[in-house]
């Protein structure tokens, strides 16, 4: 029961023959070899698999691929433009908001979604928005700081 579907990932169109109920995560990782989104739980509990679908932070592990056919998908691999990091990626490096880095792509994608919707989030808003993400290395405080720093950078970059 394979179907042909079209996925728009990081601005590139892909025509794929897949079983429509497969998770977006497994299609990204196994069929498109985009392994930036990670598997951490498969039940929507950890956020490691987060990508943006039409700008919204989405758990790709619990998203059947047919639901996102034709919609624009952004993964961590597509976040930097022409080799220039997104301000939040820069902020993660500046703050040192990672240890093993396994949670990082998901954290950054959610952080980007948050900043797009709310350019100046308070600490409480960041915590509420990010609470579905797990960092077992415990870098939460640094991630909050990185998001705040990116918000500041983005504010300064606006004309």
């Amino acid at each position, binding site marked *: 029961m394979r179907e042909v579907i079209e996925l728009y990932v990081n601005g590139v169109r892909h025509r794929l023959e897949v079983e429509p109920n497969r998770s977006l995560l*497994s299609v990204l990782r196994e069929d498109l070899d985009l392994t930036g989104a990670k598997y*951490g739980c*498969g039940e929507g509990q950890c956020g490691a698999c987060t990508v943006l679908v039409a700008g919204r932070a989405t758990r790709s592990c619990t998203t059947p691929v047919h639901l996102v056919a034709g919609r624009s998908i952004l993964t961590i*691999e597509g*976040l930097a433009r022409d080799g220039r990091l997104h301000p939040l990626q820069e902020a993660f*490096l500046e703050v040192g908001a990672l240890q093993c*880095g396994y949670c990082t792509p998901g954290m950054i994608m959610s952080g980007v979604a948050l900043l797009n919707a709310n350019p100046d989030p308070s600490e409480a808003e960041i915590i509420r928005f990010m609470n579905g993400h797990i960092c*077992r*290395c*415990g870098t939460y405080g640094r991630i909050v700081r990185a998001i705040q720093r990116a918000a500041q950078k983005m504010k300064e970059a606006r004309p």
Partner: protein
Amino acid sequence: MRHDLWTPSGEPERYELFATSVPEGASESTDGERPLPVTRRQFCQALGAGVLVLLLREVRAVQESGGGRRAEIPSMPREISAWLHIANDGRVTVYTGKVEVGQNIRTSLTQVVAEELRVPMERIHLVMGDTDLTPFDLGTFGSRTTPVMAAHLRRVAAATRELLRDLAAERWKVERWAVEIAEGKVRHPASGRSQDIGELTRGQKLSRPIPDTVTLTPPTEWRIIGTSAPKVNGRAFVTGEHRYTSDLKLPGMLYGKVLRPPAFGATLVSVDTREAEAMPGVIVVRDGDFVGVAAPSTEQATRALVAIRAQWKTTPQPSSREIFEYLKKNEIEAEGRSRYVVGSLEDGWRLAEKQWQQTYTVAYIAHAPLEPRAAVAEWKDGRLTVWTGTQRPFGVRSELARAFGLPEDRVRVIVPDTGSGYGGKHTGEAAIEAARLARAAGRPVKVVWTREEEFTWAYFRPAGVIEVRSGMKGDGTITAWEFHTYNSGAAAIRTPYAIPNQWIEFHPTRSPLRQGSYRALAATANHFARETAMDELAHLVGIDPLEFRLKNLKDERLRAVLEAAAHRFGWGKPKTAPDRGMGLAAGFEKGGYVATCAEIAVDRATGEVSVLRVVTAFECGAILNPDHLKNQIEGALVMGLGGALFEAIEFENGKILNPRFSRYRVPRFSDLPQIDVVLLDRRDLPSAGAGETPIVGIAPAIGNAIFHATGMRLRSLPLAPNGLKGETRLP
């Protein structure tokens, strides 16, 4: 060593707490050097031209024997523990068997090499955890990287620097003392000559062992060590470019899955794999109790697995409800048993005006590294190569060699920088599974455990029971201290307090769950019991807990962190609100000294305990990288908060009842307290590791704070898995 613990793979359990059998020629004090796996000639050929410097040292192997005594075994030949290569283009490659699992040692080790070699960090690349390329290493655990490997690499780099000086002096016919090295260049200021180290070594084929005496750069002159250099290659992590084991893809690779028993200890009675075998592209492997499948995608593999019908025979197993009685009743004679006796307890009791005793317990908990166990295996030309996230690449190589009856030199284990471990990735289960499937499939196979598998078939931090008895004089001077730990382990079992009469004993027991190493091992359990007991004793004699500790403490380094933490925290100030409380704890382990103060709040309506703020003071000798050290401490506090308040593995009759993040609560953003870290930098002291010890103080500090807030003394970890609701004692 073998334990009578149940193991799913049939591999001997390695329980680091008791790990007394080290590989031949290895020793704790040298971190286990062993000769090159490939011949040195082959290795040097592979490297091409350039300068290779080897750290060769006399290894006096020392083996732990029972009771913690050390038995010397005769002197070994000089062996290699680390090496460094300078290529013609001036790039420096350093080879170490350690692995990067998020503790940022790739960065700190690069710093020490950059410092001693006088080369910018960007020019240095570390090859880590590859059993074909790197020297033998016992494993990345026990906070040994900083005290041992960083020290080795400093010597290698310093010796290389001196060699470069020799080369330049020879070439330029000048005095060697007049040659300077900086920024990757050798210079002779008097004549104005200057050359890049790559040019200097071009065309040379030199390999040189390190002299016994090398001059290291004194801490007062450090320019790179001791700075907060950012994570090496951090960019690859924030762009998703870095490939963890679970991200690797080889040509023709299949995805593997393994059939799991319904309960621990179950044996396979019958299995019907016909339906799975009929699925296109699916390969089914049956080998004794091992049944696995490989397929072109994870989904297909999962479907094939579901189609397998198996019957298992189960046997009754103990449950978490009765675990503590079970441990107390199932003491065993095992090698790890140890006992420390100081003075005489009889004297201690005689001098005591107050006597007191209590029992503490800790639950099994899971490491739950965010990247579950994963491996990619490939058989080629009679050799097996496995990429896997493990803290013991050479140990996993041995496991593989044994499992497949291969000589070790036909097995290669490569460890890509891994999605953390916390002591939970010492073993090679996924590696063996992937290799089995790959052999049968005749193609590379990747196995990535599901979260549920990771929660069920990995190993756990041991549960334990700890009994404490103590006697004091009326003024709070402790005269007697008796401490019995069942199962948790012996790490940090000895008290740092100056007590004249002590009896401290570790009692190994049977364990219904597979158990093993965890960040700081039993130091967490033993500190929880000890530091809660100290708090109870302080209250018994009506002395402030800080003052009580200081009164019984001589160790200057421990006093220093305790005072630093208390000062920053504002210890001794009155409660800020009636349902708030403050607690503290201190301790020492693996060369690190830690003191933690915590302030908590209890919500009376919901019973919820929240940790508002934590101050931790830490001292581990000279600091290599302050920001990464802070990061480790913050991370340890957050992780420790989970074990302190709510993490516990529940099990019943051989089944884990909460093997998912939706059932097993781990700390999240909303649990995060305000964290303040005070670092004490002792450049006059050698550096110790810091990935583990900072975790030990948080649980007792929180428990003591809960007592301060509510008057309720909680003696089991986790302290409040469901908050304090239903606690009849809540005033």
